[in-house]
C-alpha cells in the first residue's frame, strides 16, 4: 500500500489560513490503513483546525468528507454537488488522490494534507516500512524474495557494501542490511551458492528515470 504521514499541523495551517470555506477530504484506502488520512484522521484534524481558527477569532467553515478512494474519477465525482460551497479543498489522500481532485475541480485550490512516503506494508500496528520502489521490472525471483532496490540504501544488486555491520545498514541501526537478509534467506533455502551469481546491470528505463509511466490494458478499455 501507499504509506503516508500527515503533515505537521503548522504546515497545514499555513496553506489554508487565508480561506474561509474549507473541505477536508479523506480516503478510505491506503491512508486509512496507515492512519494518516482516513475518516478518523479527517475528524480529528477538522476539529483541531476549527478550534485553532476560533481561538484566533476567525470564522472558518470546515467540513469533512471521506471518499472510497481518490484515485478513481467516479468517486471523486461525488464531491461535485457540494464543491462550490468551498474555497479550498484539503485532501488527506496520497499525492495521487490530491492530483485527481485538482484535475476534477480545476477552479478550486487543492492542498495536500499528508506527505506521501513510500510503497510498503505494515510491520505491526503503527509501524510501516518500505518494500517496493516500482522499478518496473521485478527481480524478486533472483533475490530470495527480498528487494535490494527498495531495501538497500544504495540499491546494490550485488551487495552488501563494506558498511554492513551486524546485519544493519551503515545508515542506521534501525535499518536492516538488505543483503544480510538476502544471504540469511538463501541460507535457509539451502541456496547460498546462488549468492555468487552476478546480477547484471539493470535497465532503469522502466523506473522513474525513464519518465512518467503508464499501464494500458487494451482488452479491458472501454
Amino acid at each position: 500500500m501507499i504509506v503516508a504521514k500527515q503533515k505537521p499541523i503548522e504546515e497545514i495551517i499555513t496553506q489554508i489560513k487565508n480561506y474561509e470555506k474549507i473541505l477536508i477530504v479523506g480516503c478510505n484506502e491506503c491512508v486509512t490503513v496507515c492512519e494518516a488520512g482516513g475518516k478518523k484522521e479527517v475528524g480529528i484534524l477538522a476539529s483541531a483546525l476549527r478550534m485553532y481558527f476560533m481561538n484566533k477569532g476567525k470564522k472558518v467553515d470546515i467540513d469533512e468528507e471521506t471518499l472510497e478512494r481518490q484515485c478513481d474519477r467516479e468517486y471523486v465525482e461525488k464531491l461535485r454537488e457540494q464543491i462550490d460551497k468551498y474555497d479550498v479543498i484539503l485532501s488527506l489522500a496520497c499525492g495521487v488522490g490530491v492530483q485527481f481532485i485538482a484535475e476534477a475541480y480545476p477552479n478550486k485550490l487543492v492542498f495536500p494534507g499528508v506527505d506521501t512516503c513510500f510503497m510498503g506494508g505494515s510491520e505491526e500496528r503503527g509501524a510501516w516500512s518500505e518494500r517496493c520502489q516500482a522499478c518496473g521490472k521485478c527481480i524478486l525471483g533472483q533475490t530470495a524474495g527480498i528487494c535490494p532496490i527498495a531495501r538497500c540504501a544504495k540499491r546494490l544488486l550485488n551487495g552488501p557494501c563494506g558498511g554492513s555491520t551486524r546485519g544493519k545498514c551503515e545508515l542506521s541501526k534501525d535499518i536492516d542490511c538488505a543483503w544480510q537478509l538476502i544471504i540469511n534467506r538463501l541460507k535457509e533455502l539451502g541456496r547460498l551458492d546462488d549468492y555468487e551469481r552476478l546480477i547484471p546491470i539493470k535497465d532503469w528505463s522502466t523506473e522513474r528515470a525513464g519518465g512518467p509511466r503508464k499501464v494500458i490494458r487494451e482488452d479491458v478499455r472501454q
Partner: protein
Amino acid sequence: MRAFEKGADGVYLVGCLEGDCRFNSGNLRAKRRVEKAKEILDKIGIGKDRVEMFNLSSSEGPKFAEIATEMTQRIKKIGPNPIKKMLKKAA
C-alpha cells in the same frame, strides 16, 4: 477533541491501573492517545494541560474524588477554554 470544540474547559480520562486493564492494554493505548491529543491542543493554542489521563482501580473512591478535585483546580487556574468567546458570538 469534539468536547473541546464544543467548549469544554478540561477533559480527563480515567483508566485502570497499568497492568490491570480488563481489556489488557486499553488503558495503555488511551494514554498514548491522550499524549497525542495534548500535542495537538498545544499546537492549536488550547493548551496541553486541559486534557489528562489518570489511573486507578474502580474501588478507589477517595482517589477518584482527589483526581476530580485536582483536575478542577488545575482548570480553574488555567482559565476557561479560549474558544468560548467565539462560540458565544456564533450562538
